[in-house]
């Protein structure tokens, strides 16, 4: 960075035909005008209320709760562990655990509220959820004339099926589904093994008892 270089005199302007730049400019805008009538790829406008642009799988705004099967209540993956509630930076999640009459946990939420007027769409809740339950939604038409109730989403509005998740983000949903399936199979296999072992134990016990009985008889004979 020497000082001399800063003093570089202005280079002589390149000579062009006078008015050529103006004509080039007119040609560019004229081309845009003419081609807009027959080139589909030039007109990128989507007529919004009638049509909608497809949203990217990376698009996210407010969270939703995923459930398996057809029943939003029985199939809900959420166990009301409240990890998301604790991690949420603006603290917009409110969870109450559902209990039976004896006070025993039912491992499901009685209340699950998200205040989307507070939510900042960070996606931390979806990242920390160990039960594959909470994901970021793609819905963006949430305006309402009810400032308080309309922006407080309860379980009824938050619960969405696994099929919806599959439609919204196929890649993520497939990965989750396969992992869950594998886990379930593993669990089933473990349960089966456990049952088989219990059965074997039982049989062995019975056999031993039978043998003991037989020897006792023998002893009696002896």
């Amino acid at each position, binding site marked *: 960075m020497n000082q001399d270089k*800063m003093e570089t005199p202005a280079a002589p*302007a390149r000579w062009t035909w006078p008015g050529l730049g103006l004509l080039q400019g007119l040609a560019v805008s004229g081309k845009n005008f003419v081609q807009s009538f027959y080139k589909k790829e030039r007109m990128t406008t989507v007529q919004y209320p009638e049509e909608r642009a497809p949203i990217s799988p990376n698009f996210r705004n407010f969270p939703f709760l995923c459930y398996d099967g057809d029943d939003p209540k029985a199939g809900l993956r959420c166990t009301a562990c409240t990890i998301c509630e604790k991690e949420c930076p603006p603290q917009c999640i409110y969870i109450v655990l559902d209990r039976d009459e004896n006070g025993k946990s039912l491992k499901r939420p009685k209340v699950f509220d998200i205040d989307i007027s507070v939510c900042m769409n960070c996606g931390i809740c979806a990242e920390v959820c160990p039960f594959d339950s909470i994901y970021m939604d793609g819905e963006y038409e949430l305006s309402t004339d009810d400032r308080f109730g309309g922006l407080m989403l309860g379980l009824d509005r938050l619960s969405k099926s696994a099929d919806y998740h599959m439609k919204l983000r196929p890649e993520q949903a497939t990965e989750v589904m396969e992992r869950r399936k594998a886990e379930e199979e593993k669990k089933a296999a473990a349960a089966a093994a456990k049952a088989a072992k219990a059965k074997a134990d039982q049989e062995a016990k019975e056999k031993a008892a039978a043998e003991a009985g037989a020897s006792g008889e023998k002893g009696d004979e002896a």
Partner: protein
Amino acid sequence: MMLAAIQTDESLWSLEWLPRLPQRLVEMLLHKLGASEWFVDFGGLLAAAVTVVAVFLGAFALLSLIERKTLARVQNRIGPNRAGWFGILQPVADGIKMLTKEDIVPARAEKLLHLLAPILIGLPAILALGVIPYGREWTPVSLDLGLLFFFSIGALTEVSVFMAGWASGSKFPMLGAMRAISQMVSYELPLLLSALGVVMVTGSLSLPEIVARQEGYHLGFLPAWNLLTPWGLVGGLVFFIAALAESNRSPFDLPEGESEIVAGHMTEYSGFKYALFFMGEYLGLFAISGLGITLFLGGWQAPLPGLEFVPSWIWFFGKLALVIFLFLWIRATFPRLRIDQLMRFAWLCLIPMALLTLPAAAIWHFTGRGFLSWVVTVPLLMIPWGILTVIFNKRLAPATRTYRFADS
């Protein structure tokens, strides 16, 4: 009796005479009613004036939509398409919106002038539209000094612009009005000078006469329009550029440059007063384009031989549409000039070139308007133009940009 007269007069129903139908019907009616001579004339003129105003107000409404559509297309957008079929009702929607808006008058405004300015702004344009020959049979008011009338009436626009700027009583309108005045005065000169060549060659200030003298074809197919002569080409270009500036169109829209001075002299106007300014601007655009067509593009003359069967006023409006599209195209393309560039361009480039068209037109006339005239006038105009461009390129071309820290 009257019905019979209407049915027997064949020219009444020809397309050529269509735009004058209201005028002639009113005249006939008044005549049958036994009105005195001057009252018949008065009624007919009133009907003719109403025809012109109705035609150009309709054209204004259409243009406000077409302008938005064209700009949108150049930017690869669709433009207004919600109100009616292809947005055809958009001007109506705009009108309703403007009418229902609150009319705000600033506390420090000169109330009377503030009210008067938007009313007066459309007046010169409407008066000027009255003297333009739209067709062979359709010149609303045929004046012997039509051109003089046009320019002297056109100068009134500046008064109402300044009235608006002064009466608003705030800074931006005042600045905008000052800019508008300096721009309009500067560009009035080349506008007048470039029109003068036509007057010299025609020998008349009457606009129908100027059009009539552009009749016929060179070599059997080239129309004998003033634009297709050396002095006419230069004069036409100067006239076009000056007309852009006179009507405050982009790239000379400094008086209302919204990035700098909000909306210039219209800043303190809202609702229908603003709409009136808008209308005045567009009517002025029509008027000056119409004059340019009359002077240089042969007015209502057909562009090719054998096309005279089409009614002449259709040719006029076809040319008007083309010129207006050129205005829109330019608006969609070029950025706004700086005020010093604007002034320098008017005084150092347009006025010398416009002045040169005068000797060129004289030589053209006295050397017989033939081959010899071309040989003499083309160099007369080309050489100064070349010198001017060389000078301008040297002085105004920006230096090559050197970066202090990014290079080396």
